[in-house]
């Protein structure tokens, strides 16, 4: 058993976990943040994507002890002050979700994608390529791709307006 401590969605948390405990289990079971999902056992589906120190990580592929001392953001932590993150809003606006199970990972991957490429720099083909690690069975991806593109472009506009 190991004692671990990390910041999850801005809040310092700690706990005692088995060494084999996955980060996703720590998030879901110890922290009760069930917005992060487990859809496969092989790191293919991406329903479990969270951000660890600002980078998208499949939380089913990382041990909780490896995240000791890190800052973790889950889907529950991306809206600020009651305002949806632009990616969250775009998923609703463009009907980018149906059953909602893959959605947490899709949104977290999309935010990471926009962060890495820079807002406004994503085209349709790049988004599709970047979604290699996120599986959706409901939507056929078309509206997910649209939502990510729209959010990316909107965030570029917001950045420009802020300048």
């Amino acid at each position, binding site marked *: 058993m190991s004692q671990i401590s990390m910041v999850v969605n801005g809040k310092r948390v700690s706990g005692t976990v088995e060494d084999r405990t996955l980060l996703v289990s720590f998030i879901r079971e110890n922290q009760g943040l069930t917005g992060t999902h487990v859809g496969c056992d092989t790191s293919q589906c991406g329903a479990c994507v969270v951000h660890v120190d600002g980078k998208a990580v499949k939380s089913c592929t990382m041990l909780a002890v490896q995240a000791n001392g890190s800052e973790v953001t889950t889907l529950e932590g991306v809206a600020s002050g009651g305002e949806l993150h632009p990616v969250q809003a775009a998923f609703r606006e463009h009907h980018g*979700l149906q059953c909602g199970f893959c*959605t947490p990972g899709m949104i977290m991957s999309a935010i990471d994608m926009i962060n890495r490429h820079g807002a406004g720099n994503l085209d349709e083909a790049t988004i599709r390529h970047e979604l290699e690690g996120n599986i959706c069975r409901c939507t056929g991806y078309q509206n997910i791709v649209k939502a990510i593109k729209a959010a990316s472009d909107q965030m570029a506009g917001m950045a420009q307006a802020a300048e």
Partner: protein
Amino acid sequence: MGVDGIGARVLRKEDKRFITGKGRYTDDMTAQGMGYAAFVRSPHAHARVKSIDSSAALDMPGVDAVLTGEQLVGDGIGNLICGWMIHSKDGSPMNMGAWRALEPEIVRHVGQAVAVVIADTQAQARDAADAVVVDYEELDAVVDPVAAMEAGAPQLHPEAPNNLIYDWEIGDETATNAAFDNAAHVTRMEIYNNRLVPNPMEPRAALAIYDSAEEHHTLYTTSQNPHVARLVLSAFYAIAPEHKLRVIAPDVGGGFGSKIYIYPEEMVCLWASKKVDRPVKWVSDRTEAFLTDAHGRDHRSVAEMALDANNNITGLRVKTVANLGAYMSLFSSSVPTYLYATLLSGQYNIPAIHANVKAVYTNTVPVDAYRGAGRPEATYLVERMMETAAREVGMSPADFRRKNFITQFPHQTPVIMCYDAGDYSATLDAAMNAIDYSGFAARKAEAASRGKLRGIGMSCYIEACGIAPSAAVGSLGAGVGLWESAEVRVNPVGTIEVLTGSHSHGQGHETTFAQLITERFGIGNDQVSIVHGDTDKVQFGMGTYGSRSGAVGMSAIVKALDKVEAKAKKIAAHLMEASEGDITIEGGELKVAGTDKKLTFTEVALAAYTAHNLPAGMEPGLKEGAFYDPTNFTFPAGTYICEVEVDPETGKTEIINFVAADDFGKVINPMIVEGQVHGGLTQGIGQALLENAAYDETGQLLTASYMDYCMPRADDLPAEFKLSTHETLCPGNPLGMKGCGEAGAIGSPPAVINAITDAIGSNALSMPATPEKVWQLCRAGMQQAAE
């Protein structure tokens, strides 16, 4: 129409919880003192269970119990059932073998559960399950359904000699044979419809809670139809009487058919929670899902089509072997019979059809309905045959189809169905325009200049939804009626709760169902809640599958709304001293036509509940329920056209263009309908290009994870599906709806394969059209050309 009424692109009410991580799926539920279940599963496809030694497992930390099939049977828990009786052509009932939730004697597929461990944590339960020692005597296995029927094949069930479940037929064999005797041309094909795994992203899960004081069970589970689950668990599996069993299907992460059925694991959790007197949770991992969720398709067919000298179709003769796996799942028997062969007429005038279907046991995972269920198999067969026949007789595929289209309605086919309405030329024209069909030759030439092979293929599908008139399905062997129920509760403040027996697991019912209320009463959809998925809240319902929530579920709501409207108008007329016939409802107000007298909906609702001044003899309250039994199946239909480019050097197929022109009848929310089509098309394209459940000859599933089973990814698909809808109203239900949930998966596979075979000039292609298969055919073609 109100802004959020019928036909409006209303954004989804349910989205907020899903995009903020507040969805509540079964695995998100917990209960005080909860233990976890892990199943001990057979590594063999066919074996005798000689002994189970739990002693080491019981000594492990946190382990509460190890329960076996012997105990389950000893407690009187019933066998799993198939709820649709099919009779063979000789009149004998289908041969159903016994299926126990934990198998004490003979396991018949890899992954079948023989015991369950209950422990304090999931990890402890899984560790202990690994430590249960089962001594198996391996038996020969058979995975090929044709081989399974041969003499000397391993026998799965004593009840089913030669592994034959039924040998069923439909249509007029004599008339069909006569058509072939007189045919000017016969097209013949062997067609395989590949085995698929439904793969909703949320794996199955269950949380069973037993209250020993009340002798009451609660089951949270991933179900498309919680009331059917409760009925079956009570009436057949003897878990508990219905009033002592509450089934809740909360947010459910996709189903596609695979969450219709009541599986061994959910049953065992219920039984075990009583046995160990603590709540028991089980969550499937993905490999368990591959090994236990009902698979789909797996048909081997030989099809023949007879044409006269004018290229009119005169007959269709089909022989199909359907692999049902190791056990008969809940609706498995109906899929290759009444959901399949009744659609073999397609959109065409075919005077004589005969189909023979043999359903067979094999040592594979049970097969049942998966998105489309029988109709994709029928459509693939008919549309591959249509394309091939057109090529053989030298007609354009469009002209050949158009020449044989049904144009008069109602149309009685030779295989039970009576099509009520449609306009097949309209959807064919729309799809051809959308893809610029006439410009294809130029695009093909341009692609050739780059060394690429372009092809175009179409599929004119029809399907049967709105399943279905209860008396009709009863006469065909269904064990249940397939109506739907609804209750509309108007609260004293005028807000409305609609209780429905339909279940939403991605379809957006909370939004579309509310649109009906907005349309009817002109009140905002934020004033409406849709309640579903809980047997304690909704009295009964048949659930969601077969694209029935619109045509059947919403029809029940409409019936209940009719009653609410009538009563509200009576109250308003009484209060305003007007004639009932003069009351109109718009914008949330009840008005007396031609006057300025009006009452808000809230005022009328409040009057109904204060009951201070109601018409003489009227009961207080404003709440009405309705059951709706469909009058016919509904018949969505349309044309899909796919344009592909094949790289002959690699065999890789790229879908350049895909257009869909659908007739779904009345569309309530176009945004949601488009989403359903996108998803359906993608599953169909997945079947055509990527997905295949592959077994080795010993019965090991080779594709039991996402590393081996190729799920469609975002970059496997074209940049945009071009969709359009063309409405002919269904005359059989009040809204004129036909259903849209499955069309994409039904219509798309033959369009893709017809396009690839057009591109490469070889018809010998089976699904999935992997680069390897396509490359081999390209090579063979080039060699032939060189010779």
